[in-house]
């Protein structure tokens, strides 16, 4: 049974169709990256899954519970890590965890708090007010709070947005550990690297819909080939290469001062200038190929 099943879900806010016929299935035990630019409908999807938004149309099942009717049962077995820090900053680290252990009806509060403290590596800061923690510690605590009841399903909403690279790597390690324990993870992100590293599968979202989904490698191979070329040159030189690439039926776009040719291994000999930079194709290339929009 899939941990999350959405079929034809629609959610409008006035004239805006935030989620517009969304189909998504997250099999149990995998990490699915929901990838899309700001405004694609990722956050609304997360709110639909926690019952904080009610769909206008469509079918939603979480851990086998029909939403919104059985939302509370689903929430009891699901952990949510929000994009924005909403810890109680004057309260101690351990009390923040204890309150949520109670809200999740955990039988042994003390044991759950100890386990969450170990997970967040904050055992020695347990008595400190959240206000005294660094940004990275607060983010670890926020994640541990969402896991205090050992949920089977975890929703991570942009888990590393706004964090510096070192802290981001720390959080990735934490998520990796969670994945290894067999939890199902739905992670929304607009960072390509995050999705490529952590997700078993990704679903690309644009304008309220999933436009493509699958394993990152397969999606890239299918839509963007193996390699992509970035050609930095004066406009006239770029224009000439662009015409030739288009004539050869290759995906082409401008990215600032560069011409990007997607799936360049299929280019006829001599088309790609020698000074062009070749790199492996990425999900970003897939996304642009499919939507014409940039991700980040």
């Amino acid at each position: 049974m899939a941990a999350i099943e959405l079929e034809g879900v629609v959610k409008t806010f006035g004239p805006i169709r935030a989620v517009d016929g969304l189909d998504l299935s997250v099999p149990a035990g995998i990490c699915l990256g929901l990838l899309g630019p700001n405004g694609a409908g990722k956050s609304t999807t997360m709110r639909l899954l926690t019952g904080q938004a009610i769909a206008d149309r469509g079918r939603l099942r979480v851990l086998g519970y029909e939403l919104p009717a059985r939302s509370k049962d689903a929430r009891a077995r699901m952990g949510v890590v929000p994009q924005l820090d909403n810890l109680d900053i004057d309260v101690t680290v351990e009390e923040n965890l204890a309150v949520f252990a109670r809200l999740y009806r955990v039988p042994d509060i003390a044991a759950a708090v100890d386990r969450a403290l170990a997970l967040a590596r904050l055992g020695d800061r347990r008595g400190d007010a959240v206000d005294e923690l660094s940004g990275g510690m607060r983010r670890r605590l926020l994640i541990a709070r969402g896991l205090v009841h050992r949920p089977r399903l975890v929703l991570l909403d942009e888990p590393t947005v706004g964090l510096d690279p070192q802290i981001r790597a720390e959080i990735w390690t934490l998520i990796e550990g969670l994945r290894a324990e067999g939890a199902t993870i739905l992670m929304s992100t607009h960072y390509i690297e995050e999705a490529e590293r952590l997700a078993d599968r990704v679903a690309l979202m644009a304008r309220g819909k999933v436009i493509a989904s699958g394993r990152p490698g397969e999606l890239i191979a299918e839509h963007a080939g193996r390699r992509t070329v970035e050609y930095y040159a004066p406009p006239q030189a770029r224009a000439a290469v662009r015409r030739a690439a288009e004539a050869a039926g290759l995906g082409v776009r401008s990215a600032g001062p560069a011409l990007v040719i997607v799936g360049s291994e299929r280019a006829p000999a001599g088309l790609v200038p020698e000074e062009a930079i070749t790199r492996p194709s990425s999900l970003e290339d897939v996304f642009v190929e499919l939507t014409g929009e940039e991700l980040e």
Partner: protein
Amino acid sequence: MRRIEPAAVLGVMSREVANFRTFWRSTTFSSLIEPMVYLLAFGLGLGTTLVTQVDGIDYVEFVGTGMVATAVVFASALPAMFGTFVKHRFQRTYDAILAAPVDVEELVSGEMLWIGLRAGVFGTFPLLVTIGFGLEPVPGMLLVPFFAFVTALAFAGFGIAVAGSVAKIDQFNYVTTLVITPMFLLAGTFFPIDQLPEWAQVLSQLNPLHQLVVLVRDACFGFEPTDLLRLAGLVALVFAMWRLAVRQLTNRLID
């Protein structure tokens, strides 16, 4: 109506208790000192110069017992308004709570109960201070925390409903100016309302704070049969405000 789970309500309250532990000293200090300042000012100012007795009661005791209602409204309606708005809009606390197995109804119930309990305790401080100023303790006074609790529940519900209705925090000014301040002044705390024009007397009967003032004075100086009716009115108001708060906050929190 859906089932309300006590564990969810208690969980919401436990969050409030954890936060309250960080600021109880300042709140307790001001709750004790404020009635003292009022009693000294009115007792020494008005009480020794213009009025000595009202309805056969020493003026200091008249004001002191009436100030229970003042303490209750300021410990319930205002924290409910500002607290709810801040937790929703600025701290996003409610997003976190509602992601747990807690419904808006349980959230509102927990918030109301906690504010009610807190205001029930702090509401009795003016009475304790007045006893210090010479009011004779009587058994009826043991009901005062209960009266304060019930009234505070109603104002907590009112405050949450207001917070769930306004778009910006400064719109609270309309509510304090048009609702809270007139209620506070026309409660019969500082002067008896039976000398006001008839329309003001009728309005006062609809004022829950006035009902609390009468209940507290009667607890100190002798109950009347009509007090049961007053209490029943307050209980009905609690229920109405609870439902209103649940409705307004649901509209605000669930898209």
